[in-house]
């Protein structure tokens, strides 16, 4: 029998938020590594970037409970890994927040992840799979976006407890990227400036998300600039 390095084995991945930003970069990386990828985003397949990789893509609004169930029943058979990147947020202080929109942010950043974890459990457990939740360094608190920070902290606390519950069945990892150059910040209401140039490149974050999910221990990993810099020589050597 020929020996194969474990990370070379082809796996089936589910990636949410696959239409843009970090999720899109994760999809590209996984395709390049030869994995099978099922991707979802909110926009329709016809509005994807022209160079979008050739994967199974389905438009699903993750704030709709029924849509999540239908999608998982129809599209997902065997599954080794799930990387949940879909999320949204606004740079709004409490004075600028809109009480009626709090629910939407909680719904996409937290409730949807709970529904997905719940619906995916059986499939992941059957193959000793892994669940990756993409949080944010804002999970420690952020005055400029208290509601967003709260949802990411909720995801972290949920992931911590779930990792303990599923210890021997499905590994759960929460991956917290620092500011990433995906356009999310502009969308969230932070104008592009010189700081934007200092943000992490999405492909590097994607790399660290994919690797972080395979970590042996520790449910949480922060994807910081420091970690990026120390990995640069490693990347060059590959």
């Amino acid at each position, binding site marked *: 029998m020929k020996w194969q390095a474990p990370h070379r084995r082809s796996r089936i991945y589910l990636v949410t938020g696959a239409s843009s930003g970090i999720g899109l970069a994760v999809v590209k990386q996984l395709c390049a590594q030869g994995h099978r990828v099922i991707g979802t985003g909110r926009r329709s397949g016809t509005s994807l970037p022209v160079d979008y990789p050739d994967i199974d893509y389905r438009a699903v609004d993750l704030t709709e409970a029924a849509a999540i169930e239908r999608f998982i029943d129809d599209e997902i058979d065997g599954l080794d890994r799930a990387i949940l990147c879909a999320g949204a947020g606004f740079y709004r202080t409490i004075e600028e927040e809109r009480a009626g929109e709090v629910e939407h942010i909680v719904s996409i950043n937290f409730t949807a992840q709970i529904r997905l974890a719940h619906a995916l459990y059986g499939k992941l457990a059957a193959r000793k799979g892994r669940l990756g939740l993409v949080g944010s360094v804002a999970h420690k608190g952020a005055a400029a976006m208290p*509601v967003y920070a709260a949802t990411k902290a909720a995801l972290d*606390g949920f992931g911590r407890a779930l990792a303990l519950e599923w210890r021997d069945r499905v590994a759960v990892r929460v991956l917290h990227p620092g500011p990433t150059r995906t356009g999310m910040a502009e969308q969230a209401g932070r104008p592009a400036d010189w700081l934007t140039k200092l943000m992490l490149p999405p492909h590097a974050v994607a790399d660290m998300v994919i690797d972080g999910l395979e970590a042996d221990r520790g449910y949480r990993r922060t994807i910081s600039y420091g970690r990026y810099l120390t990995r640069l020589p490693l990347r060059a050597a590959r």
Partner: protein
Amino acid sequence: MTRVLITGGAKGLGRACVRTALKNGGHVTVLDADASGLTQLPDGVSAIHADLADAAELRSAINRLSASEPFDIVIMNAGINATGPFETLPVERQAKLIAVNLTAPMALTTALIQADKIARDGRLVFVGSLSHFVSYPGASTYAGTKDGLTVFARSLRRHLRRSLGIRVQVVAPGPMDTDHATEHSPTPDDRGTRMHPSVVADTIWRSWSGFLIVPGMAASGASILGRLLPGMAGRIMRRVIFEKLQARTSEPSNLSSR
């Protein structure tokens, strides 16, 4: 007179906070989903009936509060729990838990601040949980909501103090002798070792300073362990809570009686 708003004030810790506030001469408004519990509140307490899990009821509660006088103390206490292995708990119950424990207090806070309903030098107190330090396998979604609420408070703390003079605080109680806590405990007969809600309520009332309030020696000790050795605290919680809940769920007789 100190004006106090307490969510979830009909039962448990919220009810204890109502008593403490009245004892100290406060004027109390209670917001709760429990209509019959509201009728049993002492005289003089204003009651607002609203199910915080219902977006329309939440909106009308916000409208009523926006028309009232500013409050000196707001205690965001309303919360529910669901315990058991995550994958066995109905997901709609977990969605409701998120609505009550996380969405509602954030939406209420937003509305109160924007309508200027918290007095200068007033206090905004969120009821979190000791699980923020030690985790809570067997109530993963609940643990998430309480961490979310704690970090929401942390995000507001400095900003509200500076701009409006409001003091934001989080109280992180351990196991209490309330219906809520005993119902969700793997060992419901351990009431003796639990903190009485009136003790926690008094601690909240007295704590005019500090951000994180951890009432009681046992809970303080656990919070310190959780901060120093989070991994070990999590493993202990898995053993003393989750594994017992797991055993209970696999006994069909107990499951049907709940």
